[in-house]
């Protein structure tokens, strides 16, 4: 038995307009993305065709008689127009990887505490504080890094390490901590990056842990598991894939981070050889030099942008795929 409706669908002339407007809104983003890639390829083409594959991987020749690892260097010379993306690519990957390494355990710790142990009265303000941290503009982190964190780091950590290393200047330890003791280097840049991606990662981890049905957790406690066992054997495995996705999103943010890194990485285009060496990233190089660059220099910078785009795009694509295959 069915009910006959007396209503006829009302025709409103604005309906198709509304439909097309929303279709336009949806496609705008795709068009922007496509034209962005197009611009990067067209703009970077002069540099890419000039240097070919050498743009991505190119080293200077070592001086005669010096074949050690420490003579390796890569060119970036706006005067003679020779550019290689090797050092910035490496700087980007090292800083992002180190930042993840520092941020990941702390982010998991925050999320576990917030979802498992934290009394409800503290949980809300603590969560809000974490979210507030995520909203601080990156240039603020950069200035804090350069004017507060770097001098402190140089004085309390870097200088004692260098003094300790001077006992045996040929050891690997000495080579890893070699550098100018002013706190502007790969390591401090990674630490500042870690602080920047930390709140974001912690917030998403918390959401992931909250998505676990309470029965699962209660069942684990019910069979006599300790909180540590519940966390490591039940909770984390339950949202494993999603967590990898969050890590990739954090990595994506670290890769593209510009201003904070520019302030504190020391901005040298040399091939980084120690943890405390000054370096540069793809984004910091573009931010530094784009305003005054011309011709091939400008094209090389746009090509760096393309490289960064491809790296970030790959990372985010993997993250999306992992997050979408996660059951909630």
């Amino acid at each position, binding site marked *: 038995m069915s009910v006959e409706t007396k209503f006829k669908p009302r025709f409103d002339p604005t309906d198709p307009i509304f439909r097309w407007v929303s279709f336009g809104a949806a496609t705008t983003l795709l068009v922007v993305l496509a034209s962005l890639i197009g611009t990067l390829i067209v703009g970077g083409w002069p540099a890419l065709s000039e240097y070919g594959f050498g743009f991505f991987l190119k080293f200077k020749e070592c001086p005669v008689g010096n074949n050690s690892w420490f003579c390796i260097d890569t060119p970036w010379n706006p005067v003679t127009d020779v550019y290689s993306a090797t050092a910035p690519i490496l700087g980007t990957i090292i800083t992002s990887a180190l930042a993840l390494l520092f941020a990941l355990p702390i982010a998991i710790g925050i999320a576990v505490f917030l979802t498992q142990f934290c009394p409800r009265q503290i949980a809300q303000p603590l969560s809000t504080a974490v979210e507030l941290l995520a909203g601080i503009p990156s240039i603020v982190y950069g200035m804090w890094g350069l004017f507060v964190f770097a001098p402190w780091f140089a004085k309390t950590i870097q200088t004692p390490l260098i003094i300790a290393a001077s006992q045996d200047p040929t050891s690997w330890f000495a080579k890893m901590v070699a550098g100018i003791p002013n706190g502007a280097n790969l390591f401090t840049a990674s630490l500042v990056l870690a602080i920047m991606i930390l709140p974001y990662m912690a917030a998403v981890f918390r959401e992931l842990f909250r998505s676990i049905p309470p029965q699962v957790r209660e069942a684990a406690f019910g069979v006599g598991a300790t909180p540590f066992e519940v966390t490591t054997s039940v909770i984390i495995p339950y949202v494993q894939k999603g967590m990898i996705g969050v890590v990739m999103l954090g990595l994506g943010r670290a890769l593209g981070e510009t201003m904070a890194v520019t302030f504190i990485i020391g901005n*040298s285009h040399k091939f980084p050889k120690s943890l405390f060496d000054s370096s540069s990233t793809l984004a910091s190089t573009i931010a530094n030099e784009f305003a005054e660059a011309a011709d091939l220099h400008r094209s090389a910078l746009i090509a760096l942008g393309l490289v960064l785009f491809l790296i970030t795009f790959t990372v985010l694509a993997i993250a999306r795929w992992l997050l979408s295959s996660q059951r909630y």
Partner: protein
Amino acid sequence: MFKFFKGAVAAVLLTATLTSAATAADTISGAGATFPAPLYAKWAEGYKRTTGVQLNYQAIGSGGGIKQIQAKTVDFGASDKPLTQAELDKSGLYQFPTVVGGVVPAINIPGVPSGKLKLPGAVLADIFLGKITLWNDPAITKWNAGLNLPAMPITVVHRSDGSGTTFLFTSYLSIASNEWKSNVGASDAVEWPTGVGGAKNDGVAALVRQTAGSIGYVEYAYVQKTGIGYALVASKDATWPQPTAAAFKAATAGADWANAPGNYLLVLNQPGANAWPITGATFILMYKEQANPTKAAEVLKFFDYGYKAGDFNANDLFYVPLPANVKTMMRKQWAQQIKSGGKAVYTSPNP
């Protein structure tokens, strides 16, 4: 629904009217160098009060300024780096200097007071080449008998961003040292043989302050504003002038503007016992043939105002005004060079 569209259309129309009102003939536009931007803004403020004409200046960098004037999207371009006569002729441009600034080595050496360390150009180049690595190197102590220089490693700090300051500094090092000229060269960004990079003057100054035993280079205005330690550089006459407004003025006055084709002149290593060796002017670029004579005249009148009433602002903001004779020369050039349909757009007040 229709109401919403009506509102939107009205808003768009309103914006359009407002924009067109703002771009009427009483506005002049320019783009380019960031170094003189605060001064141009100050001049524009005063000029608007007296004449009602508004300047719209975008500090997008010298390279961008040159591009914008070549694309004719602005009435004038501004650049810290002068174009050569050949480059000017290729696009039919004319350039003139507005104000002068200088570059000063900033230092942080424990036990060495500001303004005492003496560095001849060649020694400065060797430090930035990474050839001299200790502050008590004989090449440095030779010139500084009275100073107690520590056995401390030298850390070089340079600009990480492309900059007119770097262009001036590396151009000077190229004059002072053949090795610098052939191995590194002069540009607004170079491949630094050694050292770390700080973003802008602030970044360089911060790194110098934080690193004991470091040397960098900053704009003169920055030394004045922040009181960072500085070193002296030998003048062409082998004297040791202090970096003051008078020293930059002396360098500019000694420079041979009359015989500089297209006003292409780097005021580096100029003769005179008081002339600071790393001095440079910042330039304005305009088309010689102007389609709109009123607008071109308005631009020149603005810079005439800058030359006249703006000196006060220049001193205030630690820029150095051009010497009077150079200003007179430029005003004469404006009358001769900038034309519209064969007619001069500007008449020099005192020919």
